[in-house]
């Protein structure tokens, strides 16, 4: 059985902030990326495998495989950093049974219908709804890019979004 030590939503997936900060901060030794797109892109997948620091394994799973692997044995073994590209993927796997109890939103990119809510994190209406729905089901959602920043709670963020 693995232990999920951090669930992070970050559209850049593995990148500088995750590698230099969060992996150490939460003492993860395995990163599980859930992305249908990436799981089917051998080259991109290899980039992530190559750039993982020594002692850190990286798995890329489709959403369906991730749900299965979670139900089997919580992604095998190790201290797991579960990395998701979007709140939609979070909602999909949560509803399919991946019942994480806390989530960090660390980076969601821009777009015409999106509004900046904290640093470089943006939301649109669909994202805001996911935050609301999951919060209502007891999931603790915070917004935080790096450990040095104070985490922002979801109520504050949603107020900002609607303000």
């Amino acid at each position, binding site marked *: 059985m693995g232990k999920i030590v951090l669930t992070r939503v970050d559209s850049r997936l593995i*990148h*500088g902030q995750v590698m230099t900060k969060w992996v150490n901060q939460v003492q993860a030794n395995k990163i599980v990326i859930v992305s249908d797109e990436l799981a089917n892109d051998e*080259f*991109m997948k290899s*980039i992530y495998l190559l*750039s993982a620091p020594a002692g850190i394994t990286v798995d890329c799973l489709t959403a369906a495989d991730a749900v299965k692997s979670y139900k089997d044995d919580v992604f095998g073994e190790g201290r797991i950093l579960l990395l998701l590209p979007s709140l939609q993927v979070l909602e999909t796997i949560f509803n399919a049974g991946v019942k994480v109890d806390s989530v960090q939103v660390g980076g969601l*990119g*821009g777009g015409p219908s999106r509004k900046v809510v904290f*640093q470089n994190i943006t939301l649109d209406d669909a994202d805001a709804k996911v935050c609301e729905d999951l919060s209502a089901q007891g999931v603790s959602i915070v917004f935080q890019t790096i450990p040095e920043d104070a985490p922002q709670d979801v109520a504050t963020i949603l107020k900002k979004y609607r303000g």
Partner: protein
Amino acid sequence: MSESNAEILLLTHGGWGMSLVKGIEMLLGKVDFVHEIPLEPSYTLPEYMQMVKEHAEAMTPDSLILTDLIGGTTSNVAAVVGNQTGIKVFCGLNAPMLLEACVELQNDGALDFDAVLAAGQGACMDVVAAVRSTMAQKA
């Protein structure tokens, strides 16, 4: 003078590469074959990928992309673009690496890729320890 149109493209977090270029220009004068696409915090991965792709499509195959950090978005994007275009990508950008590449383009008009990589790899040294060790050998 430069014979080819080879170009050096820097990809760095926050755009520190252009500060490095200013430093290099103190030594070499103008190096206008060096360009940079800074990774700004607000860029999404697809946005940055698109910017780098568009720029790289206009680069000649004997050009070079230098990135700052393996595992960072700059290198991840460059790996994809390099794989598609055939343009070489080196990570771990530092002053001696860029200096070597600029000297080669200024003098020969072409890059010696092995030499550029070696210049970057050999750049780090414990200076005082190295000096002391040299002194001890002489004594």
